[in-house]
């Protein structure tokens, strides 16, 4: 409590210590404000809201800083559907006492935290204003429709209920009027308008023997939690209650909260364990599946490897069976085409005729050899004989042996091969070719001569042997 003149804190003295002004009247005003607040609170608790609003307004006229009275006034307005008035009182309350004003905080937060409900309330107000305008312009039916919606949107909107009841009365729907007024009376039991309209309908107020209006106090109403104003007095019971409260709180935590938390942790652990087991099972299944796939693939690889080896073997066999060297054949063809028959013949001597596995190749060989061999053999024979006669035995043997390859039955060639070996002192080879000559051309002159040469050699060998 502060001095209204200087703002200094007031004591129990009749004057202010700061400005020395007499504050008796001021203190009395504050005391009266609290008395009105207590009265308003008692009336609000029994839903005598009309009178509560009157007394709470008086309380605030005596002390505008009576925060409890202002918060309660806002609540009374809210209960009668006057949400804007209610919000105004709570905002002013919060402005006058920004700190430790939990009640105003709670009410404002409660209204603002539900934008849908606030929007519904605002819609109800708009529809009510529209219905009032319609009613004043003789549009009762439209007004009734609108007011029904208003009451649905905001069932505590007392003014809308009164207007709806009035319109029902005018249109002769007395039962409906009674029903809506009964609802209105449950909100505010002593509202003058409600009681007047009920009386108009022929319903008398339910009064007790003492003339007071009876009611059933609503223990769960919005006003049940509010407490009356009382002077500050030291109270040891508060401290005792605090200690007891703390002990009960600890006991509740120990016996209720802790086991609950433990159970939650166990359940969480179990659920996580089950999830882990499920995951392991899935992983194992995947591993098994991959192993099976791996085995299948390994079998495929083995099969393919064996097939590959078999194929390689087949290729190898094929290649080994066809080892024919066609290079000399091709060379011979090239020289044959170029009409260089000597080189063609030399190339043909390199061909292994027995290995030719293609009939066409054999035919080609025969054609070429028949064509080129006779002339070349004749040429080499002449050349070989000349060289042999000139003492060039190696050169003679080189051409004569080629001629022998081309024509193994040519008696002249065979004779001069033997003769060249004989003159060169190689009697063994000389005898060899002389014998071939006698075998291949037995009736020829060269065969007869060869026999003579063999006799010469044998004689010479006999003479050369020691006695």
């Amino acid at each position, binding site marked *: 409590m502060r001095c209204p003149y200087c703002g200094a804190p007031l004591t129990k003295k009749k004057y202010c210590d700061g400005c020395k002004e007499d504050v008796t009247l001021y203190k009395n005003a504050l005391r009266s404000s609290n008395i009105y607040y207590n009265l308003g609170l008692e009336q609000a608790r029994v839903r005598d809201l009309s009178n509560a609003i009157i007394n709470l307004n008086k309380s605030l*006229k*005596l*002390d505008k800083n009576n925060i409890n009275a202002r918060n309660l006034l806002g609540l009374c307005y809210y209960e009668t559907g006057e949400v804007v008035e209610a919000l*105004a009182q709570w*905002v002013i309350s919060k402005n006058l006492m920004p700190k430790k004003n939990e009640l105003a905080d709670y009410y404002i937060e409660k209204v603002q935290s539900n934008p849908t409900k606030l929007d519904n309330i605002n819609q109800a*107000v708009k529809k*009510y204003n529209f219905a009032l305008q319609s009613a004043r312009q003789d549009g009762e039916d439209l007004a009734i429709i609108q007011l029904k919606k208003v009451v649905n949107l905001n069932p505590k909107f007392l003014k809308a209920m009164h207007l709806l009841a*009035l319109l029902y009365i005018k249109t002769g729907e007395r039962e409906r009027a009674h029903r809506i007024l009964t609802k209105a009376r449950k909100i505010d039991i002593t509202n003058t308008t409600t009681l007047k309209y009920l009386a108009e309908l022929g319903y008398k107020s339910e009064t007790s023997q003492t003339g007071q209006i009876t009611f059933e106090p609503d223990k769960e109403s919005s006003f049940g939690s509010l407490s009356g104003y009382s002077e500050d007095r030291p109270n040891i019971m508060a401290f005792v209650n605090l200690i007891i409260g703390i002990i009960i709180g600890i006991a509740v935590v120990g016996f209720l909260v802790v086991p609950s938390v433990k159970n939650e942790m166990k359940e969480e652990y179990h659920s996580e364990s089950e999830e882990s087991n499920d995951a392991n099972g899935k992983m194992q299944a995947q591993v098994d599946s991959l192993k099976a796939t791996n085995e299948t693939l390994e079998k495929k690889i083995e099969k393919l490897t064996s097939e590959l080896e078999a194929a390689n073997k087949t290729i190898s066999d094929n290649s080994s069976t066809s080892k024919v060297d066609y290079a000399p054949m091709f060379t011979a063809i090239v020289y044959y085409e170029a009409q260089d028959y000597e080189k063609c013949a030399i190339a043909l001597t390199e061909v292994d005729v027995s290995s030719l596995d293609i009939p066409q190749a054999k035919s080609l060989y025969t054609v070429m050899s028949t064509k080129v061999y006779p002339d070349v053999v004749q040429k080499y024979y002449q050349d070989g004989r000349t060289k042999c006669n000139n003492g060039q035995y190696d050169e003679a043997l080189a051409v004569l042996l080629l001629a022998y390859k081309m024509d193994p039955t040519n008696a002249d060639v065979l004779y001069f091969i033997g003769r060249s070996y004989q003159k060169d002192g190689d009697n063994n080879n000389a005898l060899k070719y002389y014998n071939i000559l006698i075998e291949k051309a037995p009736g020829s002159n060269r065969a007869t001569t060869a026999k003579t040469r063999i006799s010469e050699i044998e004689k010479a060998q006999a003479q050369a042997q020691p006695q």
Partner: protein
Amino acid sequence: MINFEEELAKFQPSLEVSDAEDVIYNNDMTDVGDIMKQMLDSMSNTKEH
């Protein structure tokens, strides 16, 4: 017997949420303390003159 027109005239339009600011600013906050202070100021001014 109530008079419908008279009763209807007693009903006033309700305030919408958008009017809340005006209600707050136009709220008559004067209490007994303010009146006493005004009176005291008035008296002291009178004494000086």
